């Protein structure tokens, strides 16, 4: 593992030009993904999904159904990959863990007073440890956006580092909640703080705030990952979440990933989609590629 020798001054993180980043992001959408590249891309996107349910109304039964769907996306299409993980609240981790069994699908749990993060360090640590004890493989934490806006970067940094320590072997995803940050400059700064503090993943959004993931925001974060990799040799994974519900958009994200970080990141160890309805649209597109016609949405299970 590469070591990080110096922690940079986060008030001096690289600046982002809004016009330039948006223009670059839109350029990826001009790529025309066809035939075998499309099928490969769709299957890969499917395999990168963190199938998510984060509702107050979640029950054991609902989570079990989701887990079954995670393993059997669409049995009418043999040879499909499974999703990467199922993402639930801490109280549902044990249910999910049991339902997924030895499928190889990871259980991710949000923690740290998700989604607002408005609680004490102690509560956040206990929230995290509870999820870990229940068997979570991955923890999705939120940063303290209020402190971040106040310029308390050390506070934000230390909090991430503390949660990372509590995670032990589990991989830590740090949610920046970019919809609350207000500028690309701040997204970049928060990304840098998270990576230097020990994040394994940086993640755009909770999905509870609009706007959630956008291509320019994700691009800012991918470029931050690249700069971090240039500097330290350490790879960080990326997870855009929320707002990606169409297969075509998912392919645009993969094009972007491929052209910014290259093929080493093109797998579910290094990239995830946080999404719930994306899977069915991808399935629909895959069936269209296979049969030549679109099928009704009723042919795809809603779990």
């Amino acid at each position, binding site marked *: 593992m590469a070591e990080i020798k110096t922690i940079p001054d986060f008030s001096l993180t690289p600046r982002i030009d809004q016009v*330039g980043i948006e*223009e670059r992001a839109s350029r990826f959408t*001009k*790529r*025309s993904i066809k035939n075998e590249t499309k099928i490969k891309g769709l299957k890969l996107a499917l395999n990168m999904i963190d199938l998510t349910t984060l509702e107050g109304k979640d029950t054991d039964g609902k989570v079990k159904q989701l887990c079954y769907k995670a393993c059997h996306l669409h049995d009418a299409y043999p040879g499909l990959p499974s999703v990467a993980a199922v993402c639930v609240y801490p109280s549902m981790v044990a249910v999910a863990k049991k339902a997924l069994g030895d499928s190889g699908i990871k259980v991710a749990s949000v923690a740290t007073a998700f989604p607002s993060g408005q609680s004490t360090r102690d509560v956040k640590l206990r929230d995290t440890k509870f999820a870990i004890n229940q068997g979570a493989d991955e923890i999705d934490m939120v940063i303290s956006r209020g402190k971040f806006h106040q310029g308390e970067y050390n506070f934000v940094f230390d909090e991430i580092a503390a949660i990372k320590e509590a995670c032990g072997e589990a991989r830590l995803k740090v949610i920046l909640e970019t919809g609350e940050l207000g500028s690309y400059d701040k997204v970049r700064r928060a990304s840098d703080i998270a990576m230097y503090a020990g994040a394994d993943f940086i993640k755009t959004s909770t999905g509870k705030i609009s706007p959630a993931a956008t291509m320019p925001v994700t691009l800012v974060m991918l470029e931050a990952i690249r700069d971090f990799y240039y500097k330290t*040799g350490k790879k960080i994974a990326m997870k855009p979440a929320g707002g990606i519900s169409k297969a075509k958009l998912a392919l645009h994200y993969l094009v972007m990933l*491929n*052209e910014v970080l*290259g*093929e080493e990141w093109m797998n579910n160890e290094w990239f995830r989609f946080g999404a719930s309805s994306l899977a069915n649209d991808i399935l629909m597109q895959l069936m269209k590629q296979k049969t030549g016609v679109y099928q009704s949405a009723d042919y795809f299970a809603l779990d």
Partner: protein
Amino acid sequence: MATKKNNTVKLQFDSSRNLAPALESKSVAKIADQYDLFINGKFEKPSSKKYFNTINPANEEKLSSVAEANSADVNKAVVAARNAYEKVWKKTSAKERSKYIYRIARMIQERARELAVIETLDGGKPIRESRDFDVPTAANHFFYYAGWADKLEYAFPNRKPQSLGVAGQIIPWNFPLLMAAWKIAPALATGNTVVLKPAETTPLTALKLAEIIQEADLPPGVVNIITGAGATGAALVNHPDINKIAFTGSTDVGKIIQKAIAGTNKKATLELGGKAANIIFDDAPLDQAVEGVINGIFFNQGHVCCAGSRLFVQESVYKIVLQKLKDRMESLIVGNPLDKNTDIGAINSKQQLDVINKYLKIGQQEGAEMFQSSCNIPKKGFYCRPTIFTNVAQSNRIAQEEIFGPVLAIQTFRTEDEAIEKANNTPFGLSAGVWTDKGSKIFNMTSKLRAGVIWANTYNKFDPTSPFGGYKESGFGREGGMHGLEGYLTV
């Protein structure tokens, strides 16, 4: 230790370049086997009886053969333009003129796809660029100048702007349709008639434009389009009944034209070569700056007179900028221009490819270090990998002369003054780019750089409302915007 680590850190982009083909269909492009000269509203056989071939530089296959106009044909076209000017166009009301120009704009939009495919077939540029840039911008120029036709007195208050007469226009091969639009639209809006000669390697979209003009019912002779090589251009420049020469092309030919028209009454605007400096300061948004450098030099295979062919990077960020630039270059897709995913298409002609390759040799002989993207290029057709040179000195030819290809010369600087001095240390002065997060620095730089167009935190942006033109040996006169009217009027 840190540098060692940097060397092992390598991103891989092979899969991003190997996408399944996504070819634009050629079926919309109707190209005749042979094209004649468009004179007085009709296609006429050349009195030279000669035709020359125009090929697709992407695969070297013949597309069509095109008439070669000799001096008798040029004379015929000029006479037609003169007659149309005196008898019809001069008397046509500004409002009517503007209706014709609008109509041409609309028809370009209607046939956008066909024009884009033909532009790509004939010139080698990626379909993404001809579809998203060349054709829409060409239509926009017509739209924009249509609006000026009846407002000339507002553009030049308290004057009585008068048209000149017959404009001889010679355009280059890098943006064939767009350059035709840049030339024809303001000339018509100001009440002049036109004889236009497209470049010999890329005549087809201008001839398609002739078809559109014919279909738009523009009075015969108002626009005449004649094809041919240098001799045809010379005959046009030297014709005694021309009132104005508008030329876009190389500085060498520009000088010949200026000599030829010295002592005559002909007005001229010349838009010539360039060797633009793109300047990156250490406080710039670096990833966007790198993207700007990519757009600056690899847009249209670098066949752009305002291409950012010299890059100046502040010393403190040189290493990281170079690393980012090289990785970005690796993700560029070079290949069949008709593929929608192609970023860099074919070099326009064998002749131009030879010029570029000559400079690649010169650069290496001068001791500069060459880096090229590792991508494969097609075996047939004219292609050049995106190329950068480091360890370049101001005295190197690759830093002084216009290469007109995807070749970038990179130097470093320490202070603002040094950047300004080096950027201005060239006989050219067409364009420049400045990359910094600091507004005051932008204003300081833009007021001291001697270039006609300076972009700040962006590059190669064009709009019909914005004037374009050069300082020094990059020419004189402005095209585009309100300024673009002046070259076609006495005020």
